[in-house]
């Protein structure tokens, strides 16, 4: 089967999912928007019938104003050579979703990372413990409502670095034009 003949077949396959919206972003990139309940069905379909064996990433986007998390599943098939990006939206509260670890083993890695960075819990994931931020006790830091700058101001001291040679350069009109204090305002 040639690659050209497989790409229309993929579109045909995707139509089997209810309420799916397909956007062709390029010759080898397909964006798919669907409801969160239908995502496991889509993944199973793609893995079973189109050779999508590679889950290359799960990314999370925090839409704070809309009270939603967006999860993007990036899937790659070595046969069709088309990247499928499946977008789903979840309510930010309580922030719980199903793990796809049973379908794709690497999902455990991505889900643990998302749980750490966004606080989104994946039911059925093998390990939701601390991952990279083993020393971190604060709120999930990649959430939009986490103010990293305020955290830094409360937890760290600031050390000014303003040596004499820099003062000389500044006297001639050079040097740092925007001081950290101005950035913070």
């Amino acid at each position, binding site marked *: 089967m040639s690659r050209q003949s497989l790409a229309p077949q993929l579109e045909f396959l995707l139509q089997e999912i209810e309420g799916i919206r397909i956007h062709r972003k390029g010759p080898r990139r397909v964006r798919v928007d669907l409801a969160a309940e239908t995502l496991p069905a889509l993944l199973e379909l793609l893995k079973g019938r189109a050779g999508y064996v590679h889950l290359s990433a799960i990314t999370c986007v925090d839409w704070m104003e809309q009270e939603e998390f967006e999860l993007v599943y990036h899937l790659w098939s070595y046969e069709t050579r088309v990247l499928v990006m499946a977008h789903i939206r979840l309510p930010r509260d309580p922030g719980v979703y199903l793990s796809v670890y049973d379908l794709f083993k690497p999902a455990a890695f991505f889900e643990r990372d998302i749980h750490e960075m966004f606080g989104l819990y994946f039911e059925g994931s*093998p*390990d939701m*413990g*601390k991952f*990279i*931020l*083993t*020393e*971190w*006790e*604060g709120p999930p*830091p990649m959430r939009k409502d*986490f103010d*990293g*700058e305020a*955290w*830094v101001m409360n*937890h*760290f*001291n*600031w*050390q*000014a*670095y303003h*040596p004499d*040679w820099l003062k000389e350069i500044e006297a001639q009109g050079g040097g740092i034009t925007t001081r*950290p204090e101005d950035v913070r305002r």
Partner: protein
Amino acid sequence: MSDLKQISIHAEGDAGGDPKSEGLFTRVFDELKAFCRSRSLFMLHYCTGCGAIELPPAMTSRFDMERLGIQPMVTPRQADILLVTGYVSIKTLKRIILTYEQMGGPKYVIGICSCTVNGGMYWQSYATAKVLNEYLPVDLYIAGCMPRPEAVITGMRQLMENIRTGKADSWKDYYRRYDHYLGNQQQLFGERWQTPTDVIGEADHYGLAGPETIGPHTALLQQHQVPLQPLEMRLGSRQERKP
């Protein structure tokens, strides 16, 4: 290259007393010892960030650090200089402190890059420790983003000069004011932070234990200190974690 004026080393002279009161032979011998020490330095480079990329040219034939007597060393226990090259995340800082405490005195710390001075371009980051000399006694900062090998060599020469004249003694400060450094470490790592090294015992051994070696923070340490054991391997382990 520039060493920060803000680094306040609270040293009150050598523990050995006033060198002028001793004999000529002792003074000459001490000077010779300091000179030899400054000319044979083993360097442990803890390459945390991008500044590490300036070290290979500084070490190899173009700038050739070895002509100054500075050689890379593979273990902390045999090293004299701890080179921290770049931003220090809180997780890395733990390892740096463990490494530093394993080194035998006299030992010197050099912070390379702006990030070790005040976080540099990571000043907003929640995960980056900002001021290195709050947690370790830093002898010399080589600022820049990143400093060129010339600056690294100049910094090294300055350190050698400081060692020769006896000015580089901030490692003693770690023992003299251990409570201060431990307090800052506890602020980041929590009250249960402890290292396998018995710093207070070492301070007694070197004769450097002062009034500020022990304080409220070391008292906290002694409350929960457990006997020496290997650090828990956490990455990849699936066992139950204590809260």
